[in-house]
């Protein structure tokens, strides 16, 4: 334990027999059963994770904008649907780009897409009109509340190989206002099932004891020199995996490539 303060805290908890909530106090999970993990569809990541995302656990993909969160999520969903499983995406603010989902290789027939409210002034495109609507907090909170309820309904129904909730655009303060029991309830529901649950969040929020956290950072690589010939070539994603009970703690480098449609575009 690197941090002495944490070590002192843990020993104090142990003295009072309150250490069962500490992930470091629990025995590590050995994953030898391949059916206990859901492959992510990325060889390097799967190798590091000993097979993939743990089933029956709550994992999370955390990162800022343009760090490849959505690319990685769609990759995981494509892998799930390729295996013949069904996947669900709770899209809190209706951000899914269907063309990207197709490019990632998702079997759309096996994807349940639950679209939250796209908070904006539908039908009007003027800056002035948009300013008047300006994301009222109650609308945002209502969208978040609905998304969490939808997540509970989906995990309670069961039968899904992968369930993801996209909270990437929810402000951190709104996420922190959610009672922590929200995620405990989700974890209790999926425990022992074949469902791998993934949160996509701007910063780590609620990994379960057996789950993992993928913290992403990325750099966009461009091809070409002039504006008119330049295009996004790839996204170099650095994924830091944290999962104490699974003895996984390290980094893996991934490269997300531009889809063919983007690459084939011709500038004027």
């Amino acid at each position, binding site marked *: 334990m690197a941090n002495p303060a944490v070590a002192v805290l843990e020993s104090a908890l142990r003295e009072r027999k309150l250490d069962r909530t500490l992930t470091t106090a629990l025995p590590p999970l050995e994953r030898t059963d391949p059916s206990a993990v859901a*492959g992510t*569809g*990325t060889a390097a990541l799967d190798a590091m994770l000993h097979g993939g995302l743990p089933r029956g656990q709550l994992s999370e993909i955390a990162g800022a*904008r*343009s760090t*490849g969160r*959505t*690319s990685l*999520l769609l*990759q995981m969903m494509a892998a799930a649907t*390729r*295996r*013949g*499983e*069904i996947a669900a995406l709770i899209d809190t603010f209706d*951000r*899914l*780009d*269907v*063309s*990207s*989902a197709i*490019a*990632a*290789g998702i079997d*759309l*027939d*096996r*994807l349940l*897409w*639950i*679209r939250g409210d*796209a908070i*904006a002034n*539908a039908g009007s*495109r*003027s*800056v002035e009109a948009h300013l008047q609507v300006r*994301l009222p907090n109650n609308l945002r909170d209502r969208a978040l509340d*609905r998304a969490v*309820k*939808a997540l509970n*309904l989906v995990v309670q*129904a*069961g*039968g899904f190989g992968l369930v993801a909730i996209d909270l*990437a655009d929810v*402000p951190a303060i709104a996420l922190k206002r959610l009672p922590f029991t929200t995620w405990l309830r989700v974890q209790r529901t999926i425990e022992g099932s074949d469902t791998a649950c993934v949160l996509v969040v701007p910063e780590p929020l609620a990994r379960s004891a057996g789950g993992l956290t993928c913290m992403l950072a990325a750099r*966009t690589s*461009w091809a070409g020199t002039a504006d*008119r010939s*330049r295009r*996004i070539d790839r996204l170099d*994603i650095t994924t830091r995996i944290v999962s104490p009970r699974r003895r996984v703690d390290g980094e893996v480098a991934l*490269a*997300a*490539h531009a889809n063919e449609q*983007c690459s084939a575009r*011709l500038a*004027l």
Partner: protein
Amino acid sequence: MFGVLYAAPGSEPATLIDIAREFSPRIEPCGPLEIAIDLGGLTRLFGTAHEIGHELRRTAADRGVRVRVAIAGTRTAARLIVRHRAGVTVIDPGTETDAVAPLSIALLDAIAVERTMPPHRAGAMATPVSGPPSNELVVTLRRWGLRTLGEFAALAPDDVAARLGQEGVAWQRVALGQDAQPLVPAVVEERFEQALDLEWPIDGLEPLSFVLSRLLEPLSARLERRDRGAAVLHVRLHLVTRTVHERSLQLPAPMRDARTLRTLALLDLESHPPDAAIDRVVVAIDPTPGRVLQFSLLTRPLPSPEQLSTLMARLSALMGEGRCGSPMDMDSWQPGAFAMKPFAPRDSSDSHSIPVDSMNAAAPPVIALRRFRFPVPARVRVEDGRPVRVTTDRPGVSGGRVQTGAGPWRTSGEWWSEAGDAWNRDEWDVALSDGATYRVFRERDADRWFVEGVVD
């Protein structure tokens, strides 16, 4: 003794069944225009076989249906005869083989066609056969020089079996006018409906749920006894305002669990509530044969249709109509175009055709776009024809200085359409100083800029 009614083309099959049921409960439809009736015991009611035949024809004529009637000791003989002779024909018991012997061998083809064709097509084919036969057996028999059923019946059964197999022997029995199986009576389609008159009007869904449970539980038990499932659930609410609030739920798969049906009905009524208090509740079910389940050890099972339909109903009630389902690509170049369809995953047994290697294949991720469903209006400073600064008023999308940009990519479309979906724009991918990469575009007609999404 069996009678066969053969109606003229264009007759209503349901009317024919009603006519047959007036004479005997033991009837068997042989096609949309043909029905076999067990006439056993009817002689004491109507008289001789001839009198029964004429009574059948008269009753049909009263209903506006022209029919041929044949009565014989076997259904097969009656079916063959009725296609050959108009009016009423009665074959004495024991003479069926002689009676059908002179008939054309093409009649076998007509019977075979009706056995194999779906009912709606069989109705179209029910006219006397004149064209080339579709049954390979009849073609073979004709090639052998056989023209009548008697000639086919006269062949030695052992030789027929040696050359045509068991199927040939079965058809030879037909040519002899013998029945291959006993008559299987058609069961009257039971009506699954329950109603309850309330002493006091009820208002709200909570008391209604108890009423629905009381109505659905006996219906569910009856469905189970008959091995039927509900295909459509009708709920009719008679209101105190003398109006009827009716809802029909198309169920994705046959189901008969009372709790599931009640939940689905309540969720639907939650979205479409009645205007006033309820006086009378009627629940009706359109039955369909029960579902046969075959699980596999090799694939993960999908949720049952009951679970899926309940989940979808709950999600629709929570998120709104049309907000849940499977995305569908559209035949359009319009950026962000998509459609929604009901979530109905195929059985995972289809995945047997997918090679195992491709199921586990790992491929590099593809860069995705997080699309703002309504593009965010932006202020863009342009220098030398390229954007150098992008800012918006949307919290969280503050923007910044353009560090790297690529574009413009000009696209336009639907300008020929009057639906107002035309677009004409220049797209740019820009990496801003806030660390993110965005896709922005300029609407060329209005000269306005928008942020379309974030490359993520």
